């Protein structure tokens, strides 16, 4: 059976979008608190990306624009994509929780959660430290996550 080719550049694009949009939204939020609703849009983007590759906005942007134009070069590695999908799911859950706090008006907690996502994305982007992936391995090891190959498509 062939090894799974996995392009890490898609993750880098995803992390860049998260970092830029959250930081810009945070700054604008001082003048216009409604800017916090951008967290809801990012939560939808992240959770949709986990649900289906065809709904993965950063991937679509990368495949249709950034890669063909040479702005971002492919970095294909032999790697299990399941831990990265779990990390994306984790980011989506954090942003979804942040969105709930935005709607209920608790903006400090919302932005703390959003900045946690920024910090985790930065660690992965700059140093390839994927905290979500490490958590995934631990959860599989202790049997919390189901040991189904479907989770690692």
């Amino acid at each position, binding site marked *: 059976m062939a090894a799974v080719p996995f392009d890490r550049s898609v993750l880098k694009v995803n992390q860049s979008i998260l970092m830029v949009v959250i930081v810009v939204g945070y700054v604008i939020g001082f003048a216009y608190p409604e800017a916090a609703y951008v967290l809801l849009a990012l939560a939808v983007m992240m959770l949709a990306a986990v649900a289906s590759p065809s709904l993965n906005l950063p991937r679509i942007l990368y495949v249709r624009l950034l890669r063909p134009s040479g702005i971002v070069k492919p970095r294909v590695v032999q790697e299990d994509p399941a831990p990265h999908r779990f990390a994306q799911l984790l980011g989506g859950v954090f942003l979804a929780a942040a969105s709930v706090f935005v709607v209920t008006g608790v903006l400090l907690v919302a932005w703390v959660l959003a900045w946690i996502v920024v910090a985790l994305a930065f660690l992965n982007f700059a140093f390839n430290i994927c905290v979500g992936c490490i958590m995934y*391995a631990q959860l599989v090891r202790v049997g919390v996550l189901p040991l189904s190959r479907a989770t690692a498509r």
Partner: protein
Amino acid sequence: MILLLAPLIAIAAVGIVALALRAQRGSQRELVGVVVEPPRRQGAMPSILYFTGEACTICHTAQRPALRALAAGLDDGVEIREVDVAVEPELARRYRVMSLPTTIVLDGSGQVTDINVGFATGETLRRQLVDAGMPVAA
């Protein structure tokens, strides 16, 4: 203005988690040169512990085939032991396995000589086995 605290709180929280994880990762490296468990028989050849799991796609599609190809060209005395972390969690804990696949090369006395986190090629593992004392075929 209280919102200015948000990045500080978040970065402090993530920093603590990252430092804890880094310390734990570093601790696996500390196993090199250590006998975690004695070999099953005395005077044994070097061996490989291959940690895997059912949900680890790359283990099944790349690491296992690479190990099978490697095993086909090895002396019978060299053992490649596949360890499912769900079946033997205690062994995975003792070898501080954090990620799958992980391959650990042991010398004849059971001492850890190399640790590979992630996919390791057959060529890399063969070289590590030689470094661990596996005789090179003439």
